[in-house]
């Protein structure tokens, strides 16, 4: 991260030599990392959750409706974390 931002710093110094541009670039990198890292956990979580739900539905198709409702609720709660990362991405990156 540090190295990348210094690289950008140098690049901008040789080019436009603009401090705000360097700041912007740093923010963009930070935003990318923020969203990327925030997406890891919920990604795993949602995958696990849906996989388990499919297992449950396959085992007991008669309870599929209930499992599906609960699955959506679980997805909603899990997804919230990724979305907060996304909002941070919007806030600092764009």
């Amino acid at each position, binding site marked *: 991260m540090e190295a990348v931002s210094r690289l950008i710093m140098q690049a901008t110094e040789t080019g436009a030599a603009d401090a705000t541009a360097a700041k912007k670039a740093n923010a963009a990198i930070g935003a990318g990392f923020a969203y990327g890292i925030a997406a890891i956990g919920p990604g795993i979580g949602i995958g696990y959750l849906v996989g388990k739900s499919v297992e449950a539905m396959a085992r007991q198709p008669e309870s599929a409706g209930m499992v599906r409702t609960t699955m959506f609720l679980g997805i909603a709660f899990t997804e919230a974390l990724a979305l907060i990362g996304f*909002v941070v991405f*919007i*806030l600092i990156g*764009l």
Partner: protein
Amino acid sequence: MHHAVIHLHGTTVRLVSSEDATTTAATGEASTESQDLSKPGPIVPELKELYWGGGSFVVFALLMRVVLYPKLKKGMKARYEGIRTAHESADAERASARAEVADYEQQLAGIKSEAARKVDVARAAVEAERADAIAKLNARLGEQRAAAKAEVEAARAAAQSQIRDAVSDVAGRAGELATGKRPSADVLNRVVNEVMAK
């Protein structure tokens, strides 16, 4: 100059190929609205959106609560009720139809058994009549046969007595010719009987 410039609401989207990455792309247009574009943060709620959106939702929810939903639901309930009563009447009708069918089947069974009984009776009568006729026929045949037998018997007896007479006559004549005297009728009879019995 290998770059594409796209204008979208005053900002500029540039697509620059690497040969001329150093060329500056036009960004002049962006300045006309740029203060407008960066002013409200992307997650700050705007007041006009808030009250228009909120107001329309509140109005919609109230309308839904007071007018729209009850009306629709009433119609749905009425239809479901109608469907249920129709279902029930159809069920009742089906039950009555079933009873009718059962009744009809019972009658049918009665008639069938009656018919079978009649047929049996008729068959028995016919059978008896036939047996009677056969017996009568047999009796007549037997009579006729007996008569014919008796006739044949009589004819044979007559033929036998004739033959015996002829044989005893011939034998008597032959004995007379051989011995010169006629054998007695007794002897002749015995001899003839012996021969004929062979």
